[in-house]
């Protein structure tokens, strides 16, 4: 195997544990395409992005080794930039800076100013010991002997001042400790040896003509070495690298504090670590609970399907607790993997929560260990009613957020007439303004403004077809959630249940396949007080059943992709509905 890949694989393997990710503040990693072998990586402790670049591989009598260049690309607004070179600043002000960071190994000339140090990996030939070494300057300094001025004579860098001067070793150490923790975890053993070496190094400088000069000031190169393996092999490998003996784990007092207190001495055994109160935060195994609310037809099912696929592709389960007003849980049939759905029978979640929900969640956890539980409140539910109950679920699940979908087309009108719709917006931590493709820019802006006025704290995202990467909405790490405690939100709002708002639902069934034209004619005849109509029907001349979706005058038929074994049905929901056209259609097909 490629030696650089060893290092990568230990990171990948350790990151299989969510606990590990939380412990080290892992934010992810990506491959750099089309260039020299390289990866980018992000950690919670710093706002920028690390780059790892395979620079050299070698073999000697004792071991195989590889050198990996370490880069740090600060965030565009990170104060650190003011202490980095002009070239670094120039790169960071380009519009495509972050996109270029993703592919930094394709244009290394641009990346050079961001190089902070190197990590090397050494594997004993008989594979009984492994070492990593990080090498970086204590501070990366380069002096501009003649300074830099603008054409109008203002000093950007004073004469003899450093063009760059930043703590390269500290930035290197952050990533080195994560790599170390990953190796301990993959090898299931803690390091057997550690050493730090310091060597003086000249501080370089340049004249304005580009001549290199040395100052009498010196800098320090710091090299940290960690070795894993059987004692004798580890000692031999360490000696080979250092030409002297290294410290053993019991010599903690002789180690720098940051090393002595590092996680890498403990991550080989996450079980033991989990019983340590100091790290309890990382071992929270409760599933995240998302309350999904939104008015009828706003796109909740579409959004849910995406959430399901996002997690399924990561081998994770999403459990959905939903119920519908009406006698048929339609969405249960529309969602993939419909046995992940536990429907709560008696009417609306918001009205009959007590006791049922925690039982539902218990069952789900036992059966599937879901990563996320979505409580899909019916479009007619008031989320404030749910929030009060959620507090009792804390031991079972971690409330992530209330996510509300809003249909941009009819939201203004709904907000004018429905307190429940209003409350769904007010209670939200995340609002998805959906169907933005169907409204003008002006309508969009005015709705955005209205939503913002109703709810000043929610994150509002504009979507079409409810398409959004869930990772942009839900941070995998609860400790970064900055949503204020929902439960402190006003529960004194007047709370409506849907019966009070005059909503009713009615279900129609059809024994025979429907004629497509007749169905569309019927849908066109429906009065505007039908808010929402959903169902699955068989049509004559079509192999596959059709999913019927109707919201406020717009209808859409799409293939279910298979035959529908049950009886065709449509459920209509609205206020004071005149449903005679549907009744006639039912009459004609029984």
């Amino acid at each position: 195997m490629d030696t650089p890949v060893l290092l990568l694989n230990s990171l990948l393997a350790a990151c299989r544990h969510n606990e590990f990710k939380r412990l080290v503040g892992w934010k992810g990693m990506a491959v750099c395409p089309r260039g020299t072998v390289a990866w980018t990586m992000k950690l919670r402790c710093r706002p920028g992005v690390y780059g790892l670049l395979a620079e050299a591989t070698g073999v000697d009598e004792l071991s195989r080794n590889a050198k990996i260049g370490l880069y740090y690309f600060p965030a565009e607004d990170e104060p650190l930039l003011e202490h980095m070179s002009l070239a670094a600043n120039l790169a960071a002000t380009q519009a495509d800076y972050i996109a270029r960071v993703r592919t930094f190994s394709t244009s290394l000339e641009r990346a050079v100013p961001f190089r902070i140090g190197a990590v090397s990996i050494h594997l004993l030939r008989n594979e009984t010991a492994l070492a990593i070494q990080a090498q970086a300057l204590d501070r990366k300094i380069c002096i501009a002997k003649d300074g830099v001025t603008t054409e109008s004579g203002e000093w950007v860098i004073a004469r003899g001042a450093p063009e760059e001067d930043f703590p390269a070793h500290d930035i290197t150490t952050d990533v080195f400790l994560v790599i170390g923790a990953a190796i301990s975890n993959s090898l299931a053993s803690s390091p057997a040896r550690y050493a730090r070496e310091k060597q003086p190094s000249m501080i370089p400088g340049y004249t304005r003509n580009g001549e290199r000069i040395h100052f009498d000031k010196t800098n320090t190169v710091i090299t940290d070495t960690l070795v894993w393996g059987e004692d004798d092999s580890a000692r031999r490998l360490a000696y080979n690298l250092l030409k002297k003996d290294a410290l053993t784990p019991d010599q903690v007092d002789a180690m720098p504090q940051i090393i002595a207190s590092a996680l890498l001495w403990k991550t080989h055994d996450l079980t033991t670590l989990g019983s340590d109160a100091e790290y309890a935060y990382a071992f929270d195994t409760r599933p995240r609970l998302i309350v999904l609310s939104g008015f009828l037809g706003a796109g909740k099912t579409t959004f849910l399907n995406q959430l399901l696929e996002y997690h399924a592709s990561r081998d994770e389960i999403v459990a959905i607790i939903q119920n519908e007003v009406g006698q048929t849980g339609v969405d249960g049939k529309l969602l993939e993997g419909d046995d992940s759905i536990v429907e709560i029978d008696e009417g609306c979640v918001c009205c009959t929560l007590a006791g049922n929900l925690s039982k539902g969640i218990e069952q789900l956890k036992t059966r599937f260990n879901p990563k996320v539980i979505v409580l899909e409140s019916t479009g007619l539910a008031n989320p404030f009613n749910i929030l009060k109950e959620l507090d009792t679920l804390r031991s079972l699940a971690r409330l992530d957020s209330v996510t509300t979908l809003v249909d941009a087309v009819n939201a203004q009108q709904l907000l004018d007439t429905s307190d429940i719709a209003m409350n769904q917006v007010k209670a939200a931590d995340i609002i998805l303004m959906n169907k933005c493709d169907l409204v003008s820019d002006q309508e969009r802006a005015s709705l955005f403004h209205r939503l913002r006025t109703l709810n000043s704290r929610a994150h509002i995202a504009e979507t079409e077809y409810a398409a959004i990467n869930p990772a942009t909405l839900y941070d995998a790490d609860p400790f970064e959630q900055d949503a204020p405690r929902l439960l402190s939100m006003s529960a004194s709002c007047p709370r409506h249940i849907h019966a009070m708002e005059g909503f009713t639902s009615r279900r129609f069934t059809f024994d025979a396949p429907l004629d497509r034209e007749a169905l569309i004619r019927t849908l066109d005849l429906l009065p505007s007080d039908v808010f929402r109509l959903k169902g699955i029907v068989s049509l004559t001349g079509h192999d596959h059943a059709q999913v019927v979706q109707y919201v406020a005058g717009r209808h859409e038929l799409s293939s279910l992709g298979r035959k529908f074994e049950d009886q065709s049905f449509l459920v209509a929901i609205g206020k004071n509905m005149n449903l005679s056209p549907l009744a006639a259609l039912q009459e004609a097909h029984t």
Partner: protein
Amino acid sequence: MSTNRNNISRRDFVKGAATGLVAGTFASMGMYSYSPWAYSRLPKTQRNQQDFGTCRSVRVTNISETSWFNNAHLIGDIHEAGGLLVNQYTLNWAPLANGKGSGKGSYEEGISTIKDLLPHDLEKAWEIQKKLSLHPENPGGYSCLLEVEALDGTVRKFLLDTGWSYEWMDSCFKREGIDQMLRDQEIEALFISHEHWDHFWGLPVTMKYDNRIPLYVHDGFYKEGLQYIKDSGYKGEPVIVNKPVTQIAPGMALLKFDVPIINRVFGETSLAFNIKDKGLVLVSGCNHQGILQFADFAFTNLKYDNDKFYGIYGGLHISPFEDWDPKYDDLVIALGQWGFELIGCNHCTGHLTAKKFVEAGYPVVRGTARFRSASEDYLGNGDKITFG
């Protein structure tokens, strides 16, 4: 002229540079950090493009892409056994179950219940295992037939993977005529993409018809996997793939990726084809290495016509690297970047993902959703795709 005090921020200064205003300034005073010295250590990007010949076309027949039929049962079983890191041989799934329940399986005990029936009486073996295993109706499998047409028009056949359920795979083999091809020894080799249950455990089904077929496995296979090859009735010596690139035929190469995969599996091998005048075609089982790694490795290490990526087939698993920027849709963007002309995806590519490809305007070949494949958005069971 001011004294030696910095009175303008670097950021403001270089923002001017971005618009070209101070580019001249840089040039006139030597950008210190741009000095030649800074570049002395840079590794040079080198494409080491191995010439592996060309072929005229490759036709892929999807024998089965439905690895299992119920995701919740599968994940539920894995969870019950202890999660994604548990050794797959302890999960207690057919055909290697011992009846002791979740997480308490062992390869030796499982295989001992059916070993004497392999590979000649698979029906009986599967019946026995159904009684011992969890969710015995869930297994399906992944397998495809590759027909490689050489420049002179001769066609050579290969199998990628051999599925999971004996019952399901045997019926799929019969449906596509694979059983007869194997009997006639028309198929030149079987490549196992990786050691996972749904790609590898159906091995006795191939052995039933041809127990000497050349067999290629990644060198990360565990001892249970190597033993299962013997226990399935294999009479040959498996080729342990230990090089990054192995040429199989003109215009056909096997690529090896060293990547840790869930449930204690290590490594995946995928295939690459160089189609004359068209470009490169990539074929994978699950693509656990991620499309970025796969494409990138091929780009750096292979020589192919027009220097163009032409087609891709198989499961497009999400990258193991988990991106650090959620706004970046790895799969969708990567496919776009490489400019494939023909995309045939299925298996672990969800159909919403396939839909996303279509929405992004990518040339995704649709399927017919037959034989329990779930969606027409991708190439389902029994569907074919020809590159070239």
